[in-house]
């Protein structure tokens, strides 16, 4: 990739990452990420024709077990740590946009 990371890219990525960055954070990350990605050029420009990707170091297969009911963590304990709970559920602000 030769295109240099722009401030607009950073604003877009922050939205994808659900981060509300300040103007000075956007400036700092634009410089930081461009620097790190420049270092990553040695990887992105490497000829890897015919090389398989490794997503994981172990030769994993699906791990299955019998579907037996067993105790789980208590709902009360979990909800006790929630920022807001109501009627045995997590309570959150409005989910749909402009109503």
């Amino acid at each position, binding site marked *: 990739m030769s295109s240099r990371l722009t401030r607009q890219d950073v604003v877009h990525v922050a939205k994808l990452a659900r981060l509300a960055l300040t103007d000075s954070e956007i400036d700092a990350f634009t410089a930081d990420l461009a620097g790190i990605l420049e270092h990553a050029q040695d990887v992105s420009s490497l000829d890897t024709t015919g090389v398989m990707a490794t997503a994981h170091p172990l030769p994993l297969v699906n791990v299955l077990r019998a579907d037996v009911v067993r105790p789980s963590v208590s709902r009360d*304990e979990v909800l006790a740590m929630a920022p807001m709970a109501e009627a045995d559920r997590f309570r959150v602000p409005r989910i749909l946009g402009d109503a």
Partner: protein
Amino acid sequence: MSSHAVSLSVGHVDTAAAIASDVRAGTRSAVSVLEQHFSRIDAHEADIHAFNHLMRDEAMASAVAVDAAVASGRDPGVLAGVPIALKDNMCTQGIPTTCSSKILEGWCPPYNATVVDRLAAAGAVAIGKTNLDEFAMGSSTENSAFGPTKNPHDLAKVPGGSSGGSAAAVAAGFSPVSLGSDTGGSIRQPAALCGIVGVKPTYGLVSRYGLIAFASSLDQIGPFAHTVEDAALLLEAIAGHCDRDSTSIPQPAPSLVASARAGAIDGVAGLRVGIVNELSAEGISADVLARVEVAAQRLREAGATVGHVSVPSTIYGLSAYYLIAPAECSSNLSRYDGVRYGLRVNGEKGETIEDMMAASRSAGFGAEVKRRIMLGTYALSAGYFDAYYGQALKVRTLIINDFARAYQQFDVLLTPTSPTTAFAFGDRTADPMTMYINDVCTIPSNLSGEPALSVPCGVGDDGMPVGVQLLGPALSEATLFRAAAVIEKGNRS
């Protein structure tokens, strides 16, 4: 050693092996062992800041239970009465677990990590949760939201990271052993900088259930200890299959203590040791390289043959890691959204759930965590996925293949653990790349999933500890412990 330094040396160390042996035999009580360690913590923790949270009451209850077991003729286990510190990214039921992040401040997990349960079953006494770089992202503990940990050998220097609190706790004599986690060197590098033993086991050897995820294909829990034998004892106690971790290797824990002892007594006749050219050259301090040569000489004298080997693609390890780890972290840390646990901040608009999520995450995460989430999100985003993340996964294959070739000629590989000894606070915080480069020697084994350990081997020109790293193929821990015991033995003569 500076004038502030807490006095340490292997000669004075009360090892986990000695404590467990005495407690099981009834010649020392677990309570007295605990009190002795807490009095050391009370004297020096204000200088070191190894802990985010001390578990005084819970630890005393555990120690009393161990003593009661001994009194009634029951064996409390192989770690009977051994105080242990836990990195604060391992879940402890009902006890604060923060990852040194404001986003989890005050959170108490509703369950224990598998390693926490296994330690309790072995009779160990958990004494507290140790400081780390926020979410284990860093190499100095300077990224902790609760302030840095100091290196017990010189309070003006970093202890390394991210498991800096766990390394400092052992180096300062607060506990004989501790647990850390290692995603790119976060056990081995602080072990080297604090002058102790640190082990990153084979990926899948130790359960990750209850270890708060950073980069799931790289994270692995492992031990810190003053001695190779103590590290082996602790790893034996926590290793082995766990059905709550789908990446757990379906095998029982290996026998490691016997290997550590055999190395010290019988040496390593016939062992083929390869010094990795690419990790013993550019960017490594001369005084650190000199200690690698000393380690090689000790192995030769104990019967090994030592040669040089090229593992060419390791030079791409750093770049590949800083694409893969942020990519996985951006996915794993999406769970911190202010909905189910942790910090919630209502946005300025205060209206929708998306405002709340962005406001909570922005207030809760520190700069390095945000930087990596941003980098990872970018590397995974449409149009860039193949060039960055996809390419990094292929480099991972190249590294695995290069190591496999090296292990056709050599049983273990030898490198420095860290390019330099411990550095001063603030030295490497201005530019992220200068901090990331600390991990150049340790990252390749996280990418390959293979085991590696750091063992102390003298000091550098500044008098600060130097660690050397031994690498081996998957599940070769017994061989690594055997060779490490030879290097360690040389420190005592």
